[in-house]
Every structure is written in structure tokens, then in C-alpha cells.
């Protein structure tokens, strides 16, 4: 039983066995028609998917078994590991592919030996019997306090990502050509109060493309949105594979020390973006827009403080690509470095697929 871990953190991904767990029988032994679903567990899977918890399968079956589960559930799985190797290896691939930590993974299997193997190899994973799982929807670690529109589509987005990655590998042209080829659309617009839950979620969940490194409470974000000093800007991303919704944001402010007649400096205390936007031009677009917007406002310099970590190297790559530089010797004790660039001369280009909106 997993009840000893009730106080633990939220589960972000459930990995299900198929035979005698999601299905009422064994997929390959049922004759011409595959066995029917276990209605209770399939209902739990659908309920948890609706709460933004990723649903995956790990099964000793051909891939068609996962497709059959998707048909029964009427939704796309975030990951499917079908094959004949041990379940701990399948869990390892799912964890790596989805970018979740083992503490946030639950595993459901009717087979005691499989459960024991996973529990031994992945002590942080919450291992459940089908009987446990039938109750799981009422447990706190399966009940996220806020479910945003983006969270509800999360599993679907991973399926879209798989198709997009396959297309990118087959494409062979430049990244910008690929982004245009797949109908990439980036919209940049001021944040509204309706965006606050998602902004809080982004601040807590993003790491690779996050300059601040710590969550920001929704009330604090509301304060930043309401005051006259800060500008909260959101980034929305979609392409022909699907709509990712609100994927990122920047919070900027004029530097108080830059009062006239000294040249105005625009500081950007926080930039954050979902890793789903990696490689899709959205962060480059946001940084280019910040440069251009600050320059239009009369600023001579853009400053982006960034807390360095081994997780946010992708963010630093975007800063470097946008021409921002920090003084190597001047890293603060908290790991923060000030990346800056002058706003004279040629500014980073905004690709044609970026739309700038004034308000919703």
C-alpha cells in the first residue's frame, strides 16, 4: 500500500500495466477480440488525465496493445513502453522521456513480482495494486490544487511532441524552415488576471528555461500584474501538431537607477518558459521582443539577472544567442549573474510567425 506516503508530493505520472490491470484479461490470449477494459481502472485513468496527471503504459505486449488502450480511454497516452524487457527499464525510459522525477511517478500492476521489481529498482516510485489504484482518485497526492487548461491537455501535448520530433528528424532543413513548415505560431501579449494560475504553475514547474530558479506565489504575481511598475508579458505557442497554450512569460521593470537624464535600463527579474517550447523559437522570440520593446521605450540597455544552475543551461544558450553577456567575475553569492546587452545597433530579429498583441 502507498498510504504511508500520503504526505508526499503530487504524482505527475501514472504508469499502468495493461494485462489484468487496465484490461479485464490478457491482450494476447483473448482470441480474435481483445479483452474489455476494467471499467473502474479505466475510469480512474481518465479522471487523473483530466487533472493534468500524465498517463503511461508499461506492458509486455506489442505496441498495438497501447493503441487499444488509447481507443478504450478515448485519449492519447503520454508514453507507451511495450516490449519484453523488465518493468524497471520501462519506467526508466518513461521518466527520462517525460522529464518527471521518480518521486512523482506511480506504478500500477496486478503482478506481485513486477511490483516488487519496480519497488526495488525505484524506491521513490509509488507502487500500487489495482485495488489501491481504484481508490487513488480520492488521495491527496493525486489531487493537484489547481488544474489549468494547459495541465488538462498535458498528456495530449506529449503525444503531439512525439509526432513533432519525428517530423523534425525527417525534415533535414534549418530549424527556422522547420518551424515555418509546421505552421509555428507564437503570440506575445500582456498578461491578464486569468493567466495567473498558469503563471504560478510555470514558475514552479519550469527549470531548463527559467532565470529565477524559485516558485513565485500567485498573490505575488497578482501584485506584479496590478502595480504600475512591472510589466508581465505572456507567450503563447501553437503549430499544426497542436496548441500548447500559455508556455512562458517575462516580468520586466524599469531600473530605478536609470532615471533621467541617465539612460533608462530595463531589467527583467524573471523569464520562465515550459520545456515544451524548447527548440520551437518561442524563447528566442520573447528575448527579441524584450530587446525591441525596451529599445522602443527609450532604454539603452536590457538586463536579465539569471541564477546559474546546471539545469538552466538551455536558458543561457538563448541569452547568448540573443547577444546578452555577463561579467565572468561578477557572479553573486546566490549564483546570480547579470546578463546584459546594449539596445543600440542591430537587435535580434522577430520571425514572421510571431504576432504581437496589445491585449486579450
Amino acid at each position, binding site marked *: 500500500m502507498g498510504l504511508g506516503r500520503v504526505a508526499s508530493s503530487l504524482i505527475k505520472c501514472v504508469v499502468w500495466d495493461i494485462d489484468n490491470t487496465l484490461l479485464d484479461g490478457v491482450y494476447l490470449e483473448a482470441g480474435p477480440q481483445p479483452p474489455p477494459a476494467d471499467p473502474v481502472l479505466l475510469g480512474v485513468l481518465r479522471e487523473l488525465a483530466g487533472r493534468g496527471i500524465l498517463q503511461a503504459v508499461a506492458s509486455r505486449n506489442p505496441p498495438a496493445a497501447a493503441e487499444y488502450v488509447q481507443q478504450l480511454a478515448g485519449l492519447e497516452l503520454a508514453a507507451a513502453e511495450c516490449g519484453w524487457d523488465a518493468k524497471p527499464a520501462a519506467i526508466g525510459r518513461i521518466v527520462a522521456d517525460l522529464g518527471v522525477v521518480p518521486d512523482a511517478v506511480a506504478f500500477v500492476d496486478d503482478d506481485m513480482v513486477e511490483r516488487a521489481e519496480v519497488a526495488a529498482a525505484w524506491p521513490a516510485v509509488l507502487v500500487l495494486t489495482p485495488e489501491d489504484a481504484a481508490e487513488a482518485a480520492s488521495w491527496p497526492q493525486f489531487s493537484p490544487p489547481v488544474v489549468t487548461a494547459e495541465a488538462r491537455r498535458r498528456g495530449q501535448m506529449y503525444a503531439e511532441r512525439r509526432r513533432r520530433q519525428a517530423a*523534425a*528528424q*525527417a*525534415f*533535414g*532543413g*534549418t*530549424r*527556422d524552415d522547420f518551424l515555418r513548415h509546421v505552421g509555428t505560431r507564437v503570440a506575445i501579449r500582456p498578461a491578464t488576471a486569468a493567466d495567473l494560475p498558469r503563471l504560478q504553475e510555470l514558475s514552479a514547474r519550469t527549470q*531548463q*528555461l527559467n532565470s529565477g530558479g524559485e516558485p513565485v506565489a500567485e498573490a505575488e504575481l497578482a501584485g506584479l500584474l496590478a502595480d504600475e511598475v512591472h510589466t508581465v508579458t505572456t507567450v503563447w505557442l501553437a503549430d499544426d501538431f497542436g496548441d500548447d497554450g500559455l508556455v512562458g512569460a517575462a516580468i520586466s521593470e524599469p531600473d530605478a537607477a536609470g532615471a533621467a537624464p541617465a539612460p533608462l535600463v530595463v531589467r527583467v527579474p524573471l523569464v520562465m518558459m515550459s520545456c515544451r517550447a*524548447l*527548440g520551437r*523559437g518561442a*524563447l*528566442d522570440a520573447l528575448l527579441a521582443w524584450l530587446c525591441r520593446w525596451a529599445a522602443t521605450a527609450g532604454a539603452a540597455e536590457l538586463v536579465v539577472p539569471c541564477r*546559474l544552475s*546546471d539545469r538552466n*543551461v*538551455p*536558458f*543561457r*544558450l*538563448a541569452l*547568448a*544567442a540573443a547577444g546578452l*553577456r*555577463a561579467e*565572468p567575475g561578477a*557572479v553573486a553569492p546566490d549564483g546570480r*549573474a547579470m546578463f546584459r546587452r546594449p539596445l543600440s545597433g542591430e537587435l535580434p530579429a522577430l520571425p514572421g510567425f510571431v504576432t504581437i498583441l496589445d491585449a486579450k
Partner: protein
Amino acid sequence: MTEGRAHDRAEGSAASAPDALAATVAAELRVMLAEVTSRDDLLAIPLDTALFGGGVGLDSLAGALLLRRIERSYGVDVAAADLNLDALGTLGSLADFIADRI
């Protein structure tokens, strides 16, 4: 595979000419770039090709994949050693940066 080769070369590097080492690294980097971007045309880029912007158009994703491969192959953590990632200026500057550290 690459790991073993890089290691062998590292041990012999004291005796070999630095330019020859950088040229070998550059050749291997072209293969890595072609793989992380799925672009075979990068196998033939000259040393002065810019990695960001117009040349290779390296972005956060491809850049992070490239840095991970460099660390695995040569044991050089570019992001830890180079705050501004200036090493990623051109193919040649990146090859020199790595050759100086193996």
C-alpha cells in the same frame, strides 16, 4: 565509441600539434552538430561558421544536446567553464576551446 577515441587522443595530446588536435575535434563536432540538428549539410561547414544565428542556427535545445555530447565525449563542461558560452561563437572557437582542455 567517441568516448574511447577522445580519451586515447587526450593521452597522446601532449605530443601532437595543437592545431591538428583542434582539427580532429572540429571534424567530430561537425558530426555531433549534424546529429543534434538532423542536418547532414552541417558535415561540411567551414571553421568560421557561426553556431548561433544565421550559420548553424543553434538554439536552446540543439545547443544543450551538443553540450551534453561534448561533456560525454571529451569530459569538457563548456557551460561550467564559460559563463557567456562565447566558446560557441564559431565551429573553430568551440574546437579550440575543447582542444585546449583535453
